[in-house]
């Protein structure tokens, strides 16, 4: 197990290294000279050069990369020139919003997905299964930004059930805070439910076909107990494997949803960085997001192994 963790961490570092190179090199090519941008219409060639130098943009790209990487590792992620604030601070400021959003949307999505996934597997090809699957398909097909707009118009602006914009921090009360991000969370959750239902349904279906289910019948167990104790157990850990993907989905969706609902989260920071061509900030945010995805993937992989004795003890007999 320890070996696996180390192995997984090493490969994770490999991935992060690769990502850091992509991010860096790709962003090097972005048009719009950052020095020029921060000088606005007041740029003269000399000023641009001077600023470039002070921003460390005058050395070859690989040196810039190494400097950036070293800085990054030592906790100095650089300073955003749009905000004039350390990027690490900017990210930590916004993290609570995006985290709350992600957590709430998963809190909404998971119970729904488990319920629909299990029910539609139990009643395979019955109307309820078709309904659940149609809902899931619809959830997959509806563009989140459109949904966000519609929700905003109807539920926030129209009926006034929700605040139209802005985030209320936890300190001002848990429920107020939840209420302030409920609508965007629902939008994000709708995007997440589809894949979750799919995987829960299919793992439930395969669990139901397993021979241990036959054994529960031989032993004369009630159907409820057989499903509750045996079938569910087999089905419930499968979604763990896609949590990393889900997180990527949520973060991707957050870019659009946060901007529509005016939530000061990581997604909006990212959009801001793109629009303002704040290279250093963009690098920091992109690397942060992708690292988060990679790390969550590693954690879920490890968790999956811890939860799943088939893998945990499997090695001994192979």
């Amino acid at each position, binding site marked *: 197990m320890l070996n696996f963790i180390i192995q997984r961490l090493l*490969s994770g570092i*490999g*991935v*992060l*290294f*690769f*990502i850091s190179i*992509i*991010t860096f090199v*790709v*962003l090097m*090519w*972005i*048009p719009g000279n950052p020095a020029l941008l921060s000088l606005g219409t007041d740029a003269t060639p000399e000023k641009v050069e001077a600023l470039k130098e002070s921003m460390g943009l005058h050395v070859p790209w690989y040196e810039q990369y190494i400097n950036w990487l070293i800085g990054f590792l030592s906790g100095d992620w650089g300073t955003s020139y749009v905000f004039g604030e350390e990027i690490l601070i900017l990210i930590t400021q916004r993290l609570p919003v995006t985290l709350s959003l992600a957590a709430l949307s998963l809190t909404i999505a998971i119970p729904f997905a488990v319920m629909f996934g299990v029910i539609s597997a139990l009643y395979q090809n019955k109307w309820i299964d*078709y309904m659940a*699957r*149609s809902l899931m*398909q*619809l959830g*997959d*097909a*509806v*563009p*989140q*930004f*459109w949904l966000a*707009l*519609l929700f*905003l*118009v109807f539920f926030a*602006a129209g009926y006034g059930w929700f605040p139209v914009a802005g985030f209320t921090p936890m300190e001002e009360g848990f429920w107020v805070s939840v209420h302030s991000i409920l609508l965007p969370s629902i939008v994000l959750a709708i995007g997440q439910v589809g894949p979750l239902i799919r995987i829960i349904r299919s793992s439930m279906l395969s669990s139901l076909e397993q021979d241990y289910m036959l054994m529960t019948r031989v032993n004369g167990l009630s159907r409820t107990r057989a499903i509750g104790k045996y079938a569910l157990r087999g089905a419930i850990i499968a979604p763990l494997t896609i949590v990393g993907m889900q997180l*990527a*989905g*949520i*973060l*991707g*969706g957050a*870019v*659009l949803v946060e901007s529509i609902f005016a939530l000061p989260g990581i997604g909006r920071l*990212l*959009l801001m960085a*793109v629009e303002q*061509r704040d290279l250093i900030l*963009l690098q920091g945010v*992109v690397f942060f*997001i*992708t*690292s988060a*995805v*990679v790390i969550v*993937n590693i954690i879920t992989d490890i968790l999956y192994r811890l939860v799943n004795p088939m893998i945990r003890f499997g090695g001994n007999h192979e």
Partner: protein
Amino acid sequence: MSRLRNNKLFVLGIILVSMVVGLCAVSFFYLPHDPNVMNTKERLLSPSVEYLLGTDQFGRDILSRIMVSSRYALFIGLVSVSIGAAIGLFIGAIAATSKGIIQGLLMRMIDGLMAFPGILLAMMLVAVLGEGLWNAVLAIGIFMIPVFARLSYSLVLDQKDELYIKAAQSYGTSRTRIIFKHLLPTIMPRIITQFSASIGNAILIESSLSFLGLGVQPPDASWGLMLSESRQYTLTYPFLSVPPGIILVITVLGFNLIGDAVNDSMVKRRAAA
């Protein structure tokens, strides 16, 4: 195939996609109005006999714009997924049949690409390449690579220790021939399934990019762009966002349903075999 025909969701998917393809086909021969000609005196009209879906903020016919946009959507969907599938297949097959460092490197690369939330990678690439149709196609294509690479990697890995491959080795088949003549045909059906399922996703990403102003550029029409333009009028004229939103859902839903149904039927066939 007969099983597919009995699958109601598959049939629905076919119907939906045919609607969009039909709309696209018709757009080459007939458009109710010129989609790009403005008539500011007749802007933001509600649906009428003259303008079946009303007009937009410049008085352009929404139906015509939607019809023209379907070309972009289908084009981007098909081409970008083709790019992603071709490159992904190649990388996946190479990674699966090689060993050690090359495999590790390729897989880390794919993992790395996977870690980018969809829209983010596409945004970054468009930011580098510049806005526009072709760059959006390319960006989405690159986004699609890891999906196909992963899939073909695991399929090839699955197949390469199969006995029929060993048999082919045993009578002296070269590695290239094994990959192209023996492995590829067996994994192709799954790739094609993924292909059709990915088209919906590609169209969705294109619309998101256009929504953010990174995809198709005005005055050309794209559903995402139309939605983006409607944003300003969500309060005064909310209907503006309805037609492009619905057609987008129809298209994506259609492709997803087809992909899913084909996938299901293949899973069943494999289970039955």
